[in-house]
């Protein structure tokens, strides 16, 4: 591919904005100036599907109605560990209205059925004329269990002699959105798997002993976090219509491609015989990358019945079986010199993703601060509980909760403002700006821990995060212009709810000199070109450059046709406000619509795929590190008599490259902060250790935050141009969620002068920390 050189804006406006020359592919457009000088990109553009969503005309997966459609329900194990001796479906099959029954079987020798490894594991399913009938039929299935000992508690599971979840090695976690942090599950003994001792940032570095010997202060602590379920508003589920020529799948998914590939592989079908559609999506937070077990079940029932099958999970199933953020027992030993310089970080962590893997938390301690000596050992602990899944910045939220409190504690030991300490040890230029602007907006004025007086004590805290900027090159977009002047953008990418559909319209509109509402965006369907799943905050940085590039190519094709009419060269043409104009001669112009009407073909189209980052990747497989920073500040008040904590306000200072849509970015940050507050104070999966059941598998006693729990959220958004692609934009979904819980924990400590080493912080744990509980 021929390349050319272009000058790009580079740096942070108001701080160090300059220019940089990049070599870019010839078929990609010249650099955009900074957002100030653009018309559509970087503005507060209303979501293009807002009206459909608020009026209810948007059809989500559970709304799909197909002719002859059946409703399905799955039978789930009600014991946590057992061999299945028999499953008798005869009564269910005879139940009036039942059209198909399917039982999951095992390929293993010696057992017909898969062993039950957690309470809630799906065993069988029924498709019937109505959901009521399906539920009644499921209740008629008789299962004979041979129950076995089980273990729920993480630390109990780590002990020698604990009941084993797996006797044999297990494969890598498949449902993750995280990259490069899990081991393959084959190492380890008992219920332990691991350790993971490296990430894409490398492995251990330096000499720990040397590092600790150079330290003036050494902190040695253990931080604990709970299991946190995803609770998307829309549960997991599919509607599957398996016809001889094609399996059509309507899925609530954050990866149309992932569901297609998963079902194609499960049923050994060619990829071109599986079509996955997700036009509207009610949230996933990392748990909806695959077809799960409900996908194959619905497909089997559709195949058996010859009818479309609707299978959406209920809230209880969602909590129990469709993913969670693993807990963490996170040990950190950190050495520092008097001036704050970190000399050594030793990390060890255990966590349980239930019957799955993916509980590592080490990357943030490895990469956030400058420290020459580092080592990590991260273990997965298998327990008889529902499988974990990627959860908005997998591993980093737990990791930051520990690390950012540890840094706070070191600041305390050194009697320094924790913000000043971070200035010393944090190499990131963007976080320097985030700290400055965030602190100013928050009104940060450090006060010693526990210095507030009275019953209600206020405190402030700060925490930081980093998130790698992943790029997925399998990101393709088509842009079509029709002769009536309309424009259509097509990609298989789904909109998890963050506004992907809208930013695609924006970048194409900007390139074509149109308005965002002029662009129709068709996504969420695998008949369109492939694009990545909505995980790793990848999508914005992956899909918007090819969208712009495809629009640019379409525009070039149009210029080629228009130039002779205007008696000029294509390179002399430009677009603005719906007009094609000569760059120098204002009299030579034609409206885009007129130009399109005179085309030789009814449409012109082009497609483009994501190219390598301009300037090259920092890691060979599509990763640039250290770009997505955040610094969050929290103010809390603690009632020292009731133990009640209220997060009063959060200032969230964030960067995400070139911001594309300010309203949508603020939405992401609001959501991330709210989930972070909830993680710090409210949500927690409660398991009964003696019976193996989840006790709060609902949204009544699984405590989500409502209006009064939500703090004032002040967002400081920093534009940062790094000249990496034609849009230079990155995602912000995950970064928004990482620092909050740690900032809140630091603020609680600052308020009461006692640190809690575990979340959620509840009246019970606060009163205990304040020594008010005799037990």
């Amino acid at each position, binding site marked *: 591919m021929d390349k050319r050189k272009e000058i790009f804006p580079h740096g942070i406006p108001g701080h160090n904005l300059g220019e940089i020359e990049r070599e870019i592919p010839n078929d990609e457009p010249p650099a955009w100036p900074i957002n100030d000088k653009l018309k559509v990109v970087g503005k507060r553009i209303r979501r293009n599907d807002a009206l459909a969503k608020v009026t209810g005309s948007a059809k989500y997966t559970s709304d799909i109605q197909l002719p002859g459609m059946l409703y399905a329900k799955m039978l789930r194990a009600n014991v946590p560990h057992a061999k299945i001796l028999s499953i008798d479906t005869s009564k269910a099959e005879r139940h009036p209205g039942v059209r198909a029954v399917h039982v999951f079987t095992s390929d293993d020798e010696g057992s017909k059925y898969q062993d039950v490894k957690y309470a809630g594991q799906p065993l069988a399913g029924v498709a019937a004329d109505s959901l009521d009938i399906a*539920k009644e039929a499921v209740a008629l299935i008789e299962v004979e269990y041979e129950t076995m000992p089980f273990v729920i508690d993480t630390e109990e599971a780590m002990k020698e002699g604990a009941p084993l979840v797996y006797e044999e090695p297990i494969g890598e976690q498949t449902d993750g959105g995280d990259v490069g942090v899990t081991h393959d599950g084959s190492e380890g003994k008992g219920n332990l798997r691991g350790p993971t001792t490296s990430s894409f940032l490398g492995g251990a570095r330096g000499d720990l002993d040397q590092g600790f010997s150079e330290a003036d202060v050494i902190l040695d602590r253990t931080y604990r976090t709970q299991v946190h379920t995803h609770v998307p508003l829309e549960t997991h589920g599919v509607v599957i219509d398996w016809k001889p020529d094609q399996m059509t799948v309507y899925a609530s998914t954050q990866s149309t491609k992932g569901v297609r590939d998963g079902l194609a592989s499960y049923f050994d079908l060619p990829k071109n015989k599986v079509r996955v559609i997700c036009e509207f999506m009610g949230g996933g937070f990392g748990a909806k990358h695959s077809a799960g077990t409900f996908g194959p079940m619905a497909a089997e029932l559709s195949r058996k019945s010859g009818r479309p099958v609707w299978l959406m999970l209920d809230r209880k199933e969602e909590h129990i079986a469709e993913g969670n953020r693993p807990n963490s027992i996170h040990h950190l030993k950190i050495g520092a010199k008097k001036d704050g310089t970190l000399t050594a970080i030793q990390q060890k962590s255990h966590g349980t993703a239930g019957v799955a893997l993916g509980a590592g938390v080490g990357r943030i301690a490895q990469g956030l601060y400058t420290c020459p000596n580092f080592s990590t050992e991260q273990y997965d602990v298998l327990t008889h509980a529902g499988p974990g899944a990627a959860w908005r910045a997998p591993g980093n939220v737990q990791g930051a909760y520990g690390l950012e409190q540890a840094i706070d504690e070191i600041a305390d030991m050194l009697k320094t403002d924790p913000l000043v300490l971070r200035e010393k040890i944090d190499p990131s230029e963007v976080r320097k700006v985030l700290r400055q602007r965030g602190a100013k907006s928050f009104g940060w004025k450090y006060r010693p821990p526990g210095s507030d007086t009275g019953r209600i004590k206020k405190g402030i805290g700060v925490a930081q995060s980093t998130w790698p900027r992943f790029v997925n090159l399998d990101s393709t977009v088509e842009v079509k212009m029709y002769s009536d002047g309309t424009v259509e953008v097509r990609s298989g990418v789904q909109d998890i709810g963050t506004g992907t559909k809208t930013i695609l319209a924006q970048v194409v509109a900007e390139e074509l000199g149109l308005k965002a509402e002029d662009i129709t965006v068709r996504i969420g369907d695998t008949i369109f070109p492939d694009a990545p799943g909505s995980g790793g905050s990848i999508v914005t940085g992956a899909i918007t450059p090819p969208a712009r590039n495809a629009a640019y190519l379409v525009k070039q094709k149009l210029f080629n046709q228009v130039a002779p009419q205007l008696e000029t060269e294509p390179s002399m043409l430009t677009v603005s406000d719906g007009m094609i104009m000569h760059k120098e001669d204002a009299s030579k112009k034609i409206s885009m619509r007129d130009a399109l009407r005179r085309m030789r073909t009814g449409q012109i189209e082009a497609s483009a795929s994501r190219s390598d980052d301009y300037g090259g990747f920092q890691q060979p497989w599509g990763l640039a590190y250290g770009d997505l920073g955040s610094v969050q500040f929290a103010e809390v008040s603690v009632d020292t008599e*009731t*133990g009640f904590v209220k997060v009063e306000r959060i200032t969230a200072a964030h960067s995400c490259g070139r911001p594309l849509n300010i309203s949508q970015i603020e939405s992401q940050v609001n959501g991330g902060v709210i989930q972070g507050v909830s993680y710090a104070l409210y949500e927690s999966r409660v398991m009964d250790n003696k019976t193996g059941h989840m006790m709060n598998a609902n949204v*009544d006693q699984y405590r989500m935050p409502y209006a009064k729990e939500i703090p004032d959220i002040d967002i400081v958004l920093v534009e940062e141009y790094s000249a990496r692609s034609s849009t230079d934009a990155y995602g912000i979904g995950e970064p928004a969620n990482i620092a909050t819980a740690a900032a809140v924990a630091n603020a609680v400590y600052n308020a009461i002068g006692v640190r809690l080493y575990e979340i959620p912080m*509840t009246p019970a744990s606060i009163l205990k920390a304040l020594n008010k*509980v005799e*037990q």
Partner: protein
Amino acid sequence: MNRFKWYEAKSVEDALEQVNSTVSNEVASRTGNAAVFKAGGTDLLDLMKEGLVEPKTIVHIGNIPGMREITADLDESVRIGANVTLAEIEEHAYIRDRYLALHQAVASAATPQLRNMATIGGNLAQRTRCWYFRSIDHKCLRKGGDTCFARRGENENHAIMNNGTCVSVHASSVSTALMAFDAEVIITDGKGEEKRVPMEEFFVSPGEDATTENILRANEIITGVYLPPVKDSRKSYYIKQGPRKSYDWSIADVAVVMEMQGSKCTEARVVLGAAAPTPLRSRPAERTLTGKQVSASVAVEAATAAMERARPLSQNAYKIPLFEAIIREAIMEIV
């Protein structure tokens, strides 16, 4: 949820003729042929969704004429019809002015949406929110089983007093305030006879019978709540502490009603919610307050006295300082 028949009751007599069981009976030993009452349905539907009750017939009492009125008698006592919603009580000016603690308890119950549906009768008759009771997978004492799973399990929300058998706490925080005003439950039986039962006698402790939380039988229905008249000198305050402020079940709530002569308390009611399997009058606290000039130190004494008999479980000792804090605060809000 099972499929069921819907019967729209036209009168109390009609309703009583149709029902043949109580929700409590059905949870403990299902007949398969049950007809049970539904008023607002906020509790019954949750129980049905979990499969804990599968009534064949639902007898809807929500449209029975005359059951949805708040009336004051000549002696200034108040009768709240059983079908009056919590939202309607919350908005009632006379109740707010005379029975502040009740207004506060109602206003802090559930959510605005639920208060629009939930009735006072249903609130009194609702079942505990103990998560073992609410789980189809745990046949606990309250469901006719022989184990209290919470006793050695997850009991952070559970009882710190009277917790010798079942350790659940009653879900009605409105009852905490009603009991403090010496309210009585008006119950009508199949013969159309009405009786008034003091709140303390309405609730059944699990030691007597764990499978029910109140004295209601299948041939009885709550038709209203009677509130004795209160003079201007009767002051009250209610505080509920949930893990969240927007919406949550109480982890500790208290209603204090005091007859005040100047700053002297001549009679007191201190009722604790979420402390025991039933709303619980704290006579030690009441005795501490009665006859005293109420001050901060007396409030501390009363709060301490209220917790003297607390016997916390493995995870809920935090409730003791929490109760002490809100009892002190409620007393001091009055004086």
